[in-house]
């Protein structure tokens, strides 16, 4: 963000609040960038010649005679193939000691894709995790969050998903990542030797929260470059969207807006939708798929952030530690991928849908048996077999460290069906059962 000739410079601030400054200035355009005493700021309100700027890093120590330099344009990102393998901050400046990126300058937060030009998502994104591939299959162009409590290993799971997913580029948008998690991502990407297809935009907890607001737009501008210009399959990881929403509420409160539910801004739905709806299957083969993390407080999904997210995204994935096996699994009951019907049994083997439903149903029977057991009732032979099945199902399929392809998952499931149950108990359509049943 170097300064240029003929920039407008002012040195008289009219007012200062915690996050904003206001000054008299001429010819300033809405949403353009500026620096206030060297800190990056953006125009958020204009009233005649009174311009209000939101200072991303906060206004601590800003004097009334701070130098204000206007850039004449909104935030931009230079896009080119050179983005690959690099780490940037919220402003798109390198933080990996590398050179700045040359390329075409693009405004971030650009326009939406014409809905009529979208294609129906139809390509499966395999992750090797059965809780996803088998039960909640991801499809390119989909947007789906992990709903997780802060103590769950969502960053690890997401890193695994990213590295296993068969995509051309992975773009990480880290908002309020702890420094430890940032280093974890960096290390795991480096160790996997996948650095050349990964681009990271990171705001850590050490940096001002309001800066986070730029991260999704930066990440998605880079994603659009690769998906639209290069026809690549791009996977965008956004963690943690709850911290993003918190930053939104900070800004809206400081701008005296009336809060709605859970002290979130009234525009939360539109703000989140603008990000998630960038997920798209393009007509020329490129796609943007978004996997996000929304941390919950005590599993409460009625809070405004997960609630609005659920109305926007195409399903949600819940992580849970299975108490019987001690393994972290993707919860087969509460998780949902709304787009899975577009690929299962079409891009995967014909028995996929049947196997998925039967396994989840039997797992539910096991849950009932467990409740019965806990309440001190006698268990039937079927109940015992269900419980045994549940353990195997959890160990050999659901556990997130299991990494096999979908066909192997289906075969494993048939193995387990044959081991624990009769054909009638599994109750899958006759011809499919005959074809795949294993003893």
């Amino acid at each position, binding site marked *: 963000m170097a300064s240029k000739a003929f920039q407008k410079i002012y040195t008289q601030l009219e007012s200062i609040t915690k996050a904003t400054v206001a000054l008299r200035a001429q*010819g*300033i*355009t*809405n*949403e*353009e960038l500026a620096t206030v005493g060297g800190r990056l700021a953006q125009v*958020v*309100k*204009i*009233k*005649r*010649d009174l311009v209000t700027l939101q200072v991303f890093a906060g206004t601590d120590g800003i004097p009334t005679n701070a130098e204000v330099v206007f850039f004449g*344009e*909104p935030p931009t990102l230079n896009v080119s193939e050179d983005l690959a393998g690099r780490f940037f901050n919220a402003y798109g400046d390198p933080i990996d000691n590398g050179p700045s990126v040359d390329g075409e300058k693009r*405004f971030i937060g*650009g*326009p*939406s*894709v*014409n*809905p*009529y*030009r*979208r*294609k*129906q*998502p139809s390509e499966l994104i395999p992750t090797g995790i059965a809780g996803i591939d088998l039960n909640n299959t991801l499809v390119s*162009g*989909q947007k789906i969050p992990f709903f997780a409590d802060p103590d769950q290993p969502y960053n690890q799971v997401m890193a695994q998903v990213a590295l296993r997913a068969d995509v051309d580029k992975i773009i990480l948008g880290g908002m309020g990542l702890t420094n430890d998690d940032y280093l974890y991502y960096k290390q795991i990407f480096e160790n996997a030797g996948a650095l050349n297809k990964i681009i990271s935009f990171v705001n850590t907890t050490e940096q001002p929260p309001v800066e986070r607001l730029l991260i999704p737009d930066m990440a998605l501008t880079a994603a659009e470059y690769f998906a*639209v210009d290069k026809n690549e399959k791009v996977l965008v990881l956004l963690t943690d969207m709850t911290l993003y929403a918190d930053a939104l509420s900070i800004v809206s409160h400081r701008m005296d*807006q*009336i*809060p*709605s*539910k859970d002290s979130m801004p*009234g*525009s939360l*739905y*539109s703000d989140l*939708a*603008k990000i998630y*709806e*960038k997920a*798209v299957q*393009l*007509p020329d083969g490129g796609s943007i798929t978004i996997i996000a993390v929304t941390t919950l407080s005590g599993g409460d999904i*009625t*809070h*405004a952030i997960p*609630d*609005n997210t*659920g*109305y*926007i995204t*195409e399903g949600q994935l819940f992580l849970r530690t299975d108490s019987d096996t001690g393994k972290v699994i993707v919860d087969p009951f509460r998780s*949902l991928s709304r*787009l899975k019907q577009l690929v299962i049994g079409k891009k995967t083997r014909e028995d996929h849908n049947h196997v998925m439903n039967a396994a989840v149903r039997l797992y539910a029977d096991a849950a009932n048996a467990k409740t019965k057991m806990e309440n001190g009732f006698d268990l039937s032979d079927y109940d015992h077999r269900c419980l045994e099945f549940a353990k195997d199902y959890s160990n050999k399929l659901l556990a997130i460290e299991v990494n096999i392809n979908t066909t192997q998952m289906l075969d494993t499931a048939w193995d387990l069906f044959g081991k624990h149950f009769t054909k009638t108990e599994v109750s899958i359509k006759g011809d499919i059962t005959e074809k795949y049943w294993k003893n």
Partner: protein
Amino acid sequence: MKTTGIVTGIISNLVTIEVDGPVSQNEICYIDLSGTKLMADVIKVNGKEAFVQVYESTRGLKTGDKAEFQGHMLEVLLGPGILSSIYDGLQNNLVTMDGVFLKRGEYTIALDQDKKWEFKPLASPGDVVSAADWLGEVKEGWLPHKIMVPFTFEGSFKVKSIASEGEFTVNETIAVLVNESGEDVNVTMSQKWPVKVAITKYADKPRPYRIMETRVRVIDTFNPIAEGGTGFIPGPFGSGKTVLQHAISKQADADVIIFAACGERANEVVEIFTEFPLLEDPRTGRMLMERTTIICNTSNMPVAAREASVYTAMTIGEYYRSMGLKVLLLADSTSRWAQALREMSNRMEELPGADAFPMDLPAIISSFYARAGLVNLNNGQTGSVTFIGTVSPAGGNLKEPVTESTKKAARCFFALSQSRADRKRYPAVDPIDSYSKYLEYPEIIEDFKNRIGEEWVEKVLKGKNIVLRGKEAYEQINILGDDGVPLEYHKRYWKSELIDFVILQQDAFDKIDANCPMERQSYMYYLVLDICEREFDFDNFEECGNFYKKIINTLRQMNYSKFRSEDFNKYLEQLNNELNDGK
């Protein structure tokens, strides 16, 4: 001369403009941003200052930029060619736009300007006509699209000349009328109308008196909606709102379907325009898309246009209603529209009502629902707009302002319940909370008598009562245990399960079950109610459960078989045997 003004303030998409002449509330203006025209409409005026909401991003706008006022409100263009189109909330044609991305300031015309339509006159020279009277018709798909005297024409006119059969574009004159002062007025096949104003050029609006078949059992049998009626579907995410609305749009007994995708997922709209062109209308055998218009303002498109989208859809609905057609208007979701109102009200620093929604939200919602209805046209024919909106209550809580305001306005309430969805009982319409006021209308009761039979509504109420008593019994069983309640409780519970599984649940993804005509619905309902009225003897609760499970399974097989087919009859026979085995 047009009023002009200059921009004096900007907060997000709320812009203030100092004007040099008269402006009116809701007047459209264009703001010139270095050559790009941004459309906006006036939402408040204070002295010389007009507050406008801009339908696009205001990035790059500055004070001093010029605006020009247009002297009219937000209008839609009405004429042949609307059906099977895909528009945004301002009726821009999305199909004819260039490029993958929506471009700011790009406005495309709604109707094909070059297409020739086969015109047939209906009026003759010398006829005296007034607004909304039919002058002629063209075939739009298979529907007769009436060319009408423009709705804006006041007073009566004499037809001076009218085109004879032939091909015309929407802009060619097809009739010359003479007004009361003796001046000639040319009429083309297209006209404009402001979306916020209801089209009321009809004789009167009677109470709805016939039902509209949707082929969804939980609606038609249990909570029927009237033709020209209103209903709404609230439900938390994942409870199947969209699947239910899509099912209704595919199967409803309507001539025209208008689908307003208002602030929802773009991929859902993609599903409609990927699937609809391939789906046949079960009644006419024509492609569904031919009778469908999609108004698409997805969640990432500008918020102000989202608010306009439901009005655009309603105005198009009223236009087709004036042709004597049955229109079904679906809006998904009206909560997003209310949120758009909230965002604007917030920026204007109005005092907020509940959950920061504007104070007049209930009034806005009810005056919108009031635009639906069955009408008698001036020529004695009838037309209707039936409206079903979805509501996305925050946190699934039905006590929030949008749900409550809508409940006051809509006559049918199809409550989707999370617990039913969790148990995979689809459609997850709660049989106890949901209602249809139309079941109380004497006209509707009469309509059912003629359609199905004397005691239909009475039987429906009986069935509802069985479901309610079943639920109460189920609660007792849960508290006291299977053995702790009299066997009678189990019987009650299983009778309600019988109705639930056979009538209320319906597989939207099964070709036969999804599409259940009224004749078949009444047949199955009578059959099920008949079983409910029979008493069987059981030794214990397990025997009771097993018996009902068996007959439920057989009845469901009937649901999956073609009506009165060999398979169907086979299962019917099996059912009768099973019933005879029971005591």
